[in-house]
């Protein structure tokens, strides 16, 4: 089979992503975001996100097709995120994907969102192919996960994840403490510009020796958020102006430090000299800087897909399905649902059984 032409649908959080790929070639990456609608609430509101997905899906699919210069009848398969993510948001995408696949009579692949983030890397033009094994650090408003990827389509292991807030959520919450708007990531980045990252020593979650025994690769950001809140309150109680730049820079440094430290520990422990970064928080310049700097010192090669492929998108979902197809995987049955806590080991959901006549679909 020549490189499969796949349309991917991603609706796990607040981005309606439609991507079209031909094998490893990106043809369209269309994203409609409802972020502005969430801004006034200071975080993603699931019901608002789900309503926005329903509105955005059809125009986004049409836009992606015209951008890619292909018709629906040309597709080899439809792909969709089954999980993890917000249940009500995921279900809109699942409903649409099933309607489209049945309408067209095309195979449907239900895939894992987190593994999709890794698949985004293979769409990066002019880069060396992804080498295995690799450690992957995925950081966004919805997840903070450390993965050991031995094969994109068949062997991904969860090393650790956040025990409470996702890193992106921590940025949003601390931004609010500092009276900065949503989303917090870019705002904290801006505020931190003239700040001293060493001004305040905020705690590094799950980094004490006692924590490291049990949660070596896990993350926790709620203690950090509380520490920032206390610090701000103390300033107010003492009647001193909150040094926003220093607080922002020091908070960001704590988040970045713990993310990079744990990721590189995984690289060292498992003898894997490769680290892949993904997720929307990778947009944070300081995180990229520190990761690249410290990885280099540790002899670890860092890969960062272009930002447009790091944030949630449909192209990564299509890319993962294209890899599954190329590796001979059968389509999913039509009976899967949305799984808000889908484990990362389930790269494809509900793969259909080998037909009785032994003729692979």
């Amino acid at each position, binding site marked *: 089979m020549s490189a499969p032409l796949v349309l991917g649908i991603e609706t796990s959080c607040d981005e309606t992503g439609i991507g079209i790929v031909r094998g490893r070639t990106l043809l369209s990456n269309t994203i409609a975001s409802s972020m502005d609608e969430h801004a*006034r*609430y*200071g*975080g993603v*509101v699931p*019901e*608002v996100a*789900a*309503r926005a*997905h*329903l*509105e955005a*899906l*059809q125009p986004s*699919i*049409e836009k992606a097709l015209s951008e890619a210069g292909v018709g*629906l*009848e040309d597709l080899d398969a439809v792909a969709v995120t089954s999980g993890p993510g917000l*249940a*009500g948001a*995921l*279900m*809109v*995408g*699942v*409903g*649409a*994907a*099933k*309607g*489209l*696949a*049945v*309408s*067209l*009579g095309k195979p*449907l692949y239900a895939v894992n969102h987190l593994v999709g983030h890794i698949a985004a890397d293979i769409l990066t033009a002019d880069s060396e192919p992804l080498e295995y094994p690799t450690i992957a650090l995925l950081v966004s408003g919805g997840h903070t996960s450390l993965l050991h990827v031995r094969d994109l389509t068949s062997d991904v292991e969860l090393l650790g994840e956040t025990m409470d807030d996702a890193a992106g959520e921590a940025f949003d919450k601390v931004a*609010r*403490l500092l009276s900065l708007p949503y989303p917090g990531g870019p705002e904290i980045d801006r505020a931190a510009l003239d700040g001293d990252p060493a001004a305040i020593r905020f705690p590094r979650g799950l980094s004490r020796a006692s924590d490291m025994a049990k949660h070596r690769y896990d993350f926790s950001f709620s203690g950090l958020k*509380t520490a920032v*809140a*206390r610090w701000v*309150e*103390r300033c107010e*109680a003492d009647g001193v102006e909150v040094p926003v730049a220093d607080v922002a820079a020091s908070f960001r440094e704590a988040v970045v430090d713990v993310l990079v430290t744990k990721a590189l520990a995984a690289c060292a422990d498992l003898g894997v000299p490769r680290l892949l970064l993904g997720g929307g928080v990778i947009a944070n310049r300081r995180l990229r800087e520190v990761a690249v700097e410290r990885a280099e010192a540790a002899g670890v090669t860092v890969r960062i897909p272009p930002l447009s492929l790091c944030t949630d998108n449909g192209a990564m979902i299509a890319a993962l399905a294209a890899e599954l197809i190329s590796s001979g995987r059968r389509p999913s049955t*039509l*009976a*899967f*649902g*949305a799984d808000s806590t889908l484990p990362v080991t389930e790269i494809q959901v509900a793969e259909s059984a080998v037909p009785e006549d032994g003729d692979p679909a």
Partner: protein
Amino acid sequence: MSQISGVMNADYPGRVILAVDTSLGTAVALIDADGRSRADAATVDPLGHAEVIGDLLQRVLDGAGAGEISHVVAGMGPGPFTGLRIGIAAARAFALGRAIPVVPVPSHFAAALTAIETDAVTGAFAIVTDARRREVAITVFDGVDGDGIPSIVADTFLVPRVDADTHLDGIRRIDVDSLSAVDLARVGARANAAGRTLAGAEPLYLRAPDVSLPGAPKRVGS
């Protein structure tokens, strides 16, 4: 399943209409242009719409025989939002796949048509469905109009379940927990034939998203 066509031909002899509704259970049906049922598949489970919608669609297609689908009728609620959206998303995507139009129809019309044409209900009656949070959604109908579409007497409204009767003022109450996609398709077909639009593109949410604006950050103390 090879007849994917953007060409609409009103005189095509095998024209069929697909209807999808997930406002209560999951209901999918195909009818002929004259209103005869071709295939019908449904589950009454008020959950699990995402899981079953694909198989139900496939089943009615497989069971319907030859015929080019000319329209997709989408049940627009009212109903629990999460489930309701799944059917609308599937209906729209299906229509997109065939380059055919979507005909949005409020779901209560289907229950009303069933009451009038199958159960021979006469006079005013109220279709009552669960709206979660101890509320019900009510629409009052009375017979059909000249186009064969149930006539609305009072637009859909939400009331606490315990207060429903006081709002009905003696009107016959019909509580419904599943509905016929065949009748939904019939209403859509009649509306389409009459050139009428019964619902907008937005589902009948009847309720704003359940969110509260953030106040000042909570104090954590020291």
